């Protein structure tokens, strides 16, 4: 878990999606105190007019009124189930269906309507930091997943070295690890590269699907 939590929201932009701007309580006035600028996107035929692709997760956040049905459609990231920017749900009718809809939009925090000024900082703190933490976890998960996939190449490369040098498995792996460190590469990347350069030498059952030489040079994690 990252220890660098966001505690100052100055310069942020809040888009408050509601049918009754200004009547949701003390939200906009409290956001002003926290250095966050508020806007109320127009609702056209029940849909909020927001260009999600232009928003930045570092600066922008969405407050979505859970009592509106279908005002927003947000495509969540498949690995993290997160929206493009932090979403905080405004809860009026506290029914499971409404809460489920907000979770479906990727809400990481909630505020009860009418919004009480004393609850806004805590909700923002939770919503934005949960978004950051889950994003970081998603990135870490993806990196680990890639390394996991690459373990096939490590096994192939170990067998290759054993076959060529007569070393035993531990010694062959130690040699690969030593060489990858010398090249300042992860052992997985080094092995994939080695196998790609010697595809015929690898046992056919363990040959990688894509044996093209790789560019780039990922550092060890």
């Amino acid at each position, binding site marked *: 878990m990252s*220890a660098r939590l966001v*505690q*100052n929201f*100055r310069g942020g932009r809040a888009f408050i999606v509601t049918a009754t701007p200004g009547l949701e309580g003390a939200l906009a006035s*409290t956001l002003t*105190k*926290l250095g966050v600028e508020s806007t109320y996107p127009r609702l056209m035929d029940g849909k909020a007019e927001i260009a999600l692709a232009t928003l930045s997760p570092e600066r922008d956040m969405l407050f979505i009124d859970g009592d509106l049905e279908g005002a927003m459609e947000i495509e969540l990231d498949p690995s993290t189930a997160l929206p493009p920017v932090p979403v905080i749900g405004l809860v009026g009718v506290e029914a499971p269906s409404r809460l489920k809809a907000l979770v479906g939009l990727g809400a990481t925090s909630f505020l009860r309507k009418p919004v009480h000024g*004393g609850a806004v900082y805590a909700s923002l703190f939770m919503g934005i930091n949960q978004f950051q933490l889950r994003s970081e976890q998603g990135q870490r998960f993806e990196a680990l997943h890639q390394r996991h996939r690459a373990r096939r190449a490590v096994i192939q490369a170990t067998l290759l070295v054993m076959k060529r040098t007569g070393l035993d498995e531990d010694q062959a792996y130690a040699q690969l690890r030593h060489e990858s460190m010398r090249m300042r590469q992860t052992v997985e990347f080094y092995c994939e590269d080695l196998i790609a350069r010697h595809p015929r030498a690898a046992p056919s059952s363990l040959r990688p699907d894509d044996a093209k030489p790789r560019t780039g040079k990922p550092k060890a994690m």
Partner: protein
Amino acid sequence: MTAHYRIGVMFSANGPYAVVARSMLNGALLAFAELAAERDDVRLEPVVVDPCGDHAAYRRLSLDLLTSGIRNVVGCYTSSSRKEVIPCFEKHDGLLWYPSHYEGFESCDNVIYTGASPNQHVLPLVEYLAAHVGHRAYCIGSNYIWAWENSRIFREAFGAVGGTVVAERYLPVGDTDLEALAEAIVDQRPDFVFNNLIGTSAYAFFRAFQQVCARRGIDRAGTIPVASCTLSEPELHEIGPAAGDGHLSSSVYFSTIQTPANLAFTAAYGRMFPDGPAACADAEASYIAVKLLASALARAGTDAAKPVRAAVAGQTLAAPQGEIRIDPDTFHAWLTPRIGRSTADHTFQILLEAPQALPPDPYLVQSSPRLAVPMRPPKLRVVQ
């Protein structure tokens, strides 16, 4: 026609922080007395209650005041007492005029804050300490929200200028057995102590620290000064002459400010309360709160919370510390930070002061980094 309003005045004139609270009560009563002579449009009748430092009593007395028809109350010194009574003010739509410096991160619609925000007390102190005293701090405090948060703000700001906190210790409010703590501090030899102890605990600490330093032949004020955001004139009397001098304090008001407005204030205060406790920053904030309240009531024509709050937004006052005004966004006050060093005659020599009043920044929106400083677990632990 004169409008008559009953105003609650709620300070713990008895209990562990009674000395400062009595000074606050005096500041408020002085303002009521002056208003009676100055204004004929509003007449304010103070209804004084004393919770004696007991949280349950704060809650009960707030309820009594508000259900008796009173809508404005000047009161509270500790943040824990303020947080205790806020739900009651919200429920009954009253206004609490809170006249003390505090740790920020609050902006309740039912509170008008006339004391200093953290950017007006702890941040100027950090700047002064890093530039003039040293970079190794020992933090101590009373075990409640004020000390926890003020130390957290201090730690982050001090770390950003290259400082380190060698240790942090918190003690129950009212704890007066502080010799072991004083010994531990002297053993560590920090460049200074950052003190957030309040009331009797603070007085006991200053005396114990003096004794330990004297026993070990250490020039206390020159070697390990104690820096606070709370230390005030009436407390120096309580600490006593031997242990009270040479301490640093960050405050928006000292009784030694040499302006006509303050000379008039201290003279009037001295005449009305010859037996003390002496005037201090929180007494001035209480005085300011009552004066602002009277103007807001006159302007609003009612004592209902919403119109009074609207009336006080942006209001200015020629206060003893200089001109102050209420920020219309946060309902905190623009105040002038100062750094003082305590003297043997129970006052402060003013070392530095801001050229003008600073805007309040209760959430440190303008004066703190986006990301929190990570709390690192210690690399080593004591095993024996």
